[in-house]
């Protein structure tokens, strides 16, 4: 019994200290982001890797998610003779929930895993030590620009996901299943308020922060070997997914 308690205690302490390290890592990345000299060029570069490079996968997933919503929404609403509400159902679902969450998943898979692998490899090949030895803070150089870039890129990607998704649902609902174009657009206009757009925006910004924070932390502290890099990549993706969903629950319960 005592052994079991000791194991639980040791595990809890390990998790708490890991959480503390993660928060300190984020804090120092934020403080260093605003300390001169600014890393404008690096931020632009990471806007490309996080934003532009994720665009195709976000477009594709947004379009197909919208089309699936078109089918499923039509099927459900038809039972209540409410097909004309398809526009509002698709728009609200995408703006409030599916847009931010699914685009966060896409960015995690496309860019977050690459971040963790890149930083992990840099750790294993002493490139991070080399930055320290050149008197360059690697958190300021490697992490802060990525965090700033993700805060900018994520809401933009989410907005694109939303627009493409709504268009996908429109194509299925109006083009294939015969919902009136006017009722689709009007339903959307009547149901969607600024609060819906705003809550999706808040979610996407916070998801961007979570993804970059987790993936950079895991990569930065990867054990310096090949298995360490793969382990860091896997952990960063899994933890990002879980944290995005948990944080999504809290934000939804606050902002609903």
């Amino acid at each position: 019994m005592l052994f079991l308690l000791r194991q639980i205690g040791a595990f809890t302490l390990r998790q708490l200290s890991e959480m503390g390290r993660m928060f300190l890592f984020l804090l120092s990345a934020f403080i260093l982001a605003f300390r001169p000299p600014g890393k404008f060029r690096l931020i632009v570069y990471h806007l490309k890797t996080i934003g532009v490079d994720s665009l195709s996968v976000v477009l594709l997933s947004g379009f197909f998610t919208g089309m699936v919503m078109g089918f499923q929404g039509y099927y459900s609403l038809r039972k209540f003779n409410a097909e004309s509400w398809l526009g509002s159902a698709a728009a609200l679902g995408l703006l409030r929930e599916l847009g931010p969450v699914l685009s966060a998943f896409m960015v995690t898979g496309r860019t977050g895993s690459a971040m963790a692998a890149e930083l992990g490899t840099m750790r294993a090949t002493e490139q991070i030590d080399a930055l320290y030895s050149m008197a360059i803070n690697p958190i300021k150089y490697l992490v802060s620009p990525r965090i700033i870039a993700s805060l900018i890129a994520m809401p933009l990607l989410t907005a694109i996901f939303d627009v493409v998704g709504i268009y996908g649902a429109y194509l299925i609902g109006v083009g294939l299943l015969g919902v009136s174009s006017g009722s689709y657009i009007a339903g959307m206009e009547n149901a969607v308020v600024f609060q819906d757009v705003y809550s999706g925006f808040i979610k996407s910004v916070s998801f961007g922060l979570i993804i970059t924070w987790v993936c950079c932390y895991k990569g930065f502290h990867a054990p310096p070997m090949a298995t360490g890099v793969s382990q860091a990549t896997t952990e960063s993706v899994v933890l990002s997914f879980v944290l995005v969903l948990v944080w999504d629950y809290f934000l939804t319960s606050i902002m609903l």
Partner: protein
Amino acid sequence: MIRVIDLHKSFRSQKVLKGVNLEFVKGKITTIVGTSGCGKTVLLKHLNALLLPDKGAVLMDGVDITKLRQKELYEMRGRFGVLFQGAALLDSMTIFDNVAFPLREKTRMSESEIRKKVDERLDQVGLEGMGYKYPAELSGGMRKRAGLARALVTDPEIVLFDEPTTGLDPILAASIHQLIARTQKTFGFTGVVVSHTIPQVFDISDYVAILANGVIEEAKPANEFLVSKNPVVQQFIRGETEGPIHVL
């Protein structure tokens, strides 16, 4: 110039350094030899505080660098150049950008001044015209030379070499040794070389120290080291498995 005093370092339960005492003479090359895994790189990483000791001090001009605040620590690191074992070049940049990197990040030099200096250093290490290549496109020896150019580009007072010839053939290893000796004469830096390429490394060393069983067993001028009667030195030089150095 640099003094290591009673340095202890453990990783979990494994004690690597058990009270290392060593002094590095200004403007000279000191080589630390020892068996693989004995803690040479760990000791080297304490010299510019990439690792912090569990106990002990590293004095640089009388100041204990293990107690420095972060800002002072970064200033102190600016006095060092480091050639890492695998060169540790940033693989997202060309060789030119790698060598220019510390100048762009830490100085206010103009791009034309940086270009001139980087080209000069690349020439000195025999990599003229190779600046446009990426690290992945270079051989191991060329990467080491590029790493050396980066280590020297800021005109550091102290240069740390972590196994600069590991994995290279004897001819290439000799050329790297010559390069270290030649650049040391040109720039007059204090060199600390970690190596087990013996006896070749003695040719470029002014002083040699042997790290074994977690402590410095012997530290002498290079010409005296080879003829030392210390059984640890003799076992290492002869490559014997039996003796005071615990190998397995």
